[in-house]
C-alpha cells in the first residue's frame, strides 16, 4: 500500500477534482470559480499522464495532456474577457448577484 503506484496518482487527482468542484459550486467571485475550473483541468491532466505512464499507450496520453493545457489557456483568456465585461456592467463580479442578461 505504501509503494506508490497508479492508484496513488488517481487518488490525488480525484481529491483535486473534488476541490475544484467545491470551488465552482460555492465561490461567489467569478475569478475564484475560474480557479476551480483550473483545478479540475489539472486533475484531468494528472489522470492522462498517469495512465500514459502505467498503461502502454506511447506518447498519446502525454499529448492529450498538452492539448488540455492549450484549451485551458484559451478558456482562461475568454473567461477573463467575459469577467471584465461583467465588471463593466455590474461594477462587481459576484455571479450570484448577476441576474440579468441585458439592461
Amino acid at each position, binding site marked *: 500500500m505504501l509503494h506508490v*503506484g497508479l492508484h496513488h496518482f488517481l487518488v490525488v487527482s480525484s481529491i483535486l477534482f473534488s476541490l475544484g468542484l467545491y470551488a465552482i459550486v*460555492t465561490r461567489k467571485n467569478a475569478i475564484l470559480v475560474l480557479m476551480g475550473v*483550473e483545478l479540475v483541468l*489539472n486533475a484531468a491532466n494528472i489522470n492522462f499522464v498517469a495512465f500514459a505512464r502505467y*498503461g502502454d499507450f*506511447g506518447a498519446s496520453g502525454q499529448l492529450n495532456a498538452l492539448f488540455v493545457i492549450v484549451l485551458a489557456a484559451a478558456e482562461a483568456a475568454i473567461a477573463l474577457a467575459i469577467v471584465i465585461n461583467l465588471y463593466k456592467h455590474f461594477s462587481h463580479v459576484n455571479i450570484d448577484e448577476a441576474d440579468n442578461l441585458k439592461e
Partner: protein
Amino acid sequence: MNLYDIIFYIFAAITVVSGVITVTSKNIIYAAFSLLFTFFGVAGMYVLLGADFISIVQIIVYVGGILILLLFGVMLTNKVTSTDIKSGSVNVLPAVIGVALFAGALISIIIRTKWTETPGEIPLSTAGTLGSVLLNEYVIIFELLAVLLLIALIGAASIARRTKEETN
C-alpha cells in the same frame, strides 16, 4: 518506502494542502498564490510520472500565463487599496456534503479496482517523441489548436474592448 515514494508524498501533500487553501481562503490574493503552489505540486507529479516536457509546459503556461492572467483579472475587477481583497462563499454545507460523498465514492472505486499496470522504462527525454508524434499522427489536431488559439485571441480582445455605446 524508497526515495521516489517520499518525494511523491511530499508533492501530493503540497498539491492537496494548497488546493484546500485555494478553495477555502476568503482572501482572493491568498487563493491565487496557493494556486501557484498547487500548479508546482502538479508539475512535480508530472516529473515523477516521467513527463518532463509536460511538466515544463505546465510551469510555463499555468504559472507564467494563466495565473498571471487571473491575477490581472483580480486587480482589474476590484477596487484595490491593499492586498486585502475578500470574497464570500454560498451554499457551503450542501456543497461540502455533496462533494465529500462524491470524492468518497470516487476514491473507494479507485482503491477497489484492480488496475493492470504495465509501466515501461522512463525515457530520458520525452520532447523528441512528443514532437514527432504531434507532427505525424496528430497533425490535424495541431493545426486546429493553432486556429483555436487565434480565434480565442481575437474573441477575447473583441469581448473585452467592447464599450457600452457599441452594444446598444
